[in-house]
C-alpha cells in the first residue's frame, strides 16, 4: 500500500548532524495520547449507568480496543517498518481521533455498538499502529541504550492515563454541573460524550505534531563513539538478524508471548478495575466505602504514575541487569506481591496502594522491556514487525484480564456492594498466571543460527543457509 509522498520514509531520513533527542518527544506525543486507554475506569461507572448494562458489557469496549491493538500491530507491523514512522503516526492519529468521535456519537445516541465500533475497533487500530510506530525508530536511534529508548517511548503510554485521568474528571465536571467527582456522583452520559469529542480533537493535533517532527536514521548511522561490537558481549544478545516471518517460528518468540501475556493479564485486571476496586476493598458491611470517588480517581493516577515510572526505570535498568533477570523480577516478585494483595491488602489503604503500585510498575516494565528483549534475540532487522506480532499477547490479555476480574465479580454481587473477599478468587488466578510466565522466561535461550538472515557471504563459515523471509 503506497503512502502520499509527504508521509514516505524517504522524506524523513535524517541528514548528518540531526539531533536524535528530537525523536523521544515525537514518540511521546503519540504515546501520551494513546495511553488514554488506561484511564477508562474513570468514566466506566458513568457508562454502566448511562447504558443500563453490566460492567462486563462496558469492560468489553476496552477489551475490543486492546484486541484491535494487537491485531493491527501484528498485521500492519511490516507495513510500519516499510513505510516508516511518519505514515504510521499519521494513520494512528486519524484512527484514534475518529474512534473518539464515533464513540461520542454512540454515547450521545445511546448506541452501544457505535461505542464498540468507534473506541473499540477504529480507536484500537489507532492504538496498535501508534504503539509500534516510534518503538523500532527509537531502537535504531539509540542502539547504545535500547532499554532506555523503548522505556522513553512506552513510558509515554503509561503517562497518557496520568494526564487523561484528571483531565477527564475536570472536563466531565465542566460538562455536567451536577458531577463534582465526589462519592455518589456519577457524570451524565452527555458529559462523557462531550469528553470523547474533546479528547478526539485534542489528540489529533498532538499526534500530528509527533508525525511532523519524527525522523529515521540514515542507513549505517551510529552514535558517535559507539562500537557495535560491544553489543555481542552480553548473553542472549545477538548481532544477527532474524526476519519477522522466521521469528514466529522460534520457541523464543512464543515463550516471550507467554511471558507478556501472563504479565499483562495480571496487571490489566487491576488497571481496568482500579477505581471501583479500591472502594470495594475498603467497604464496610453497611455498603459504605471509606475511599471516596475522588480518592479512587487519585488511586488511578497513582497507578498511572507507577505504570509510567516502571516503564522508564525498569526498562533502563535492563540495559545493565539484562532482559531475562528483569523479567524474573517482574514475574517472581510480582507473584509474591499479588499474594500479599489478596491476603493482607484490605488491612490498610497505604498497604493496598503500595502493593498495587509496585505490581503495576512491573506491568509497565514488562511492556517497555520487551522490544529491547526482542532486539537482543532477533536483532534490529524487523524488530518493529516482530514487536507487532508479539502484541497479540497483549490482545489476548486484554480479553482475559478484564474477563477474569469482571466475570468473577459479576458472580460475587452487584457493583457498589462488593468487598475485598470478592476479589480473592480473581487475584489467585493472577498468581497462577505469573507463575507460568516466570517458568516461560526461564526457558528463553539464544535463537538458533538456522533462523539468522544470510550475510553477504552466506554459509561462508559453514553455517546452514536459512530460509530467507519474504516479509520486508
Amino acid at each position: 500500500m503506497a503512502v502520499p509522498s509527504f508521509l514516505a520514509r524517504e522524506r524523513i531520513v535524517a541528514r548528518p548532524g540531526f539531533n536524535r533527542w528530537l525523536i523521544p518527544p515525537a514518540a511521546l506525543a503519540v504515546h501520551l495520547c494513546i495511553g488514554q486507554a488506561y484511564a477508562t475506569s474513570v468514566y466506566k461507572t458513568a457508562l454502566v449507568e448511562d447504558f443500563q448494562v453490566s460492567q462486563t458489557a462496558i469492560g468489553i469496549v476496552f477489551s475490543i480496543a486492546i484486541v484491535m491493538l494487537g491485531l493491527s500491530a501484528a498485521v500492519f507491523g511490516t507495513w510500519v517498518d516499510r513505510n516508516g514512522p511518519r505514515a504510521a503516526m499519521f494513520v494512528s492519529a486519524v484512527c484514534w481521533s475518529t474512534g473518539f468521535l464515533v464513540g461520542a456519537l454512540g454515547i450521545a445516541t445511546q448506541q452501544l455498538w457505535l461505542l464498540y465500533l468507534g473506541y473499540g475497533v477504529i480507536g484500537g487500530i489507532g492504538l496498535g499502529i501508534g504503539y509500534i510506530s516510534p518503538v523500532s525508530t527509537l531502537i535504531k536511534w539509540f542502539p547504545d541504550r535500547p532499554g532506555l529508548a523503548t522505556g522513553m517511548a512506552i513510558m509515554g503510554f503509561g503517562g497518557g492515563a496520568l494526564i487523561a485521568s484528571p483531565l477527564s474528571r475536570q472536563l466531565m465536571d465542566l460538562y455536567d454541573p451536577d458531577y463534582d467527582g465526589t462519592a455518589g456522583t456519577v457524570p451524565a452520559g452527555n458529559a462523557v460524550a462531550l469528553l470523547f469529542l474533546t479528547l478526539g480533537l485534542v489528540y489529533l493535533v498532538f499526534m500530528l505534531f509527533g508525525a511532523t517532527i519524527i525522523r529515521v536514521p540514515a542507513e549505517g548511522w551510529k552514535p558517535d563513539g559507539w562500537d557495535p561490537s560491544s553489543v555481542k558481549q552480553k548473553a542472549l544478545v545477538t548481532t544477527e538478524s532474524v526476519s519477522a516471518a522466521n521469528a514466529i517460528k522460534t520457541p523464543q518468540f512464543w515463550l516471550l508471548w507467554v511471558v507478556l501475556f501472563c504479565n499483562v493479564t495480571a496487571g490489566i485486571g487491576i488497571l481496568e478495575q482500579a477505581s471501583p476496586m479500591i472502594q470495594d476493598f475498603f467497604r464496610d458491611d453497611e455498603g459504605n466505602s471509606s475511599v471516596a470517588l475522588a480518592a479512587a480517581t487519585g488511586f488511578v493516577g497513582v497507578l498511572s504514575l507507577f505504570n509510567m515510572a516502571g516503564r522508564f526505570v525498569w526498562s533502563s535498568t535492563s540495559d545493565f541487569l539484562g532482559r531475562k533477570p528483569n523479567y524474573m523480577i517482574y514475574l517472581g516478585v510480582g507473584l509474591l506481591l499479588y499474594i500479599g494483595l489478596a491476603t493482607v491488602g484490605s488491612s490498610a489503604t497505604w498497604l493496598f496502594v503500595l502493593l498495587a503500585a509496585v505490581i503495576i510498575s512491573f506491568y509497565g516494565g514488562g511492556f517497555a522491556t520487551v522490544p529491547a528483549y526482542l532486539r537482543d534475540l532477533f536483532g534490529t532487522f524487523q524488530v518493529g514487525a516482530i514487536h507487532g506480532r508479539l502484541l497479540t499477547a497483549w490482545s489476548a490479555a486484554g480479553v482475559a484480564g478484564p474477563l477474569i476480574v469482571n466475570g468473577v465479580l459479576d458472580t460475587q454481587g452487584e457493583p457498589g456492594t462488593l468487598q475485598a473477599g470478592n476479589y480473592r478468587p480473581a487475584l489467585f488466578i493472577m498468581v497462577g498466571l505469573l507463575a507460568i510466565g516466570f517458568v516461560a522466561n526461564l526457558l528463553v535461550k539464544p535463537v538458533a543460527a538456522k533462523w539468522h538472515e544470510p550475510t553477504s557471504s552466506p554459509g561462508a563459515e559453514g553455517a546452514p543457509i536459512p530460509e530467507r523471509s519474504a516479509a520486508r
Partner: protein
Amino acid sequence: MSTPMSTQDGQRPTHTPTGLIAFAWTLVGVPLAYGLYQTVKTAFDLFTGG
C-alpha cells in the same frame, strides 16, 4: 547535545535548532507535569480520606 552522523557521504549536514528541541520537550513535558501535579494532589486525598 548534538549527535553527529558518522557514516554518511555526500549529504549536506543539518543542524537541529535547540529551540525546536526545547519546544518539543516542553510540549510533551507540560501535560506530563500537569498529570504529575494532579496525581500528587489527588493522591493526597487518597491518604487523608478526601
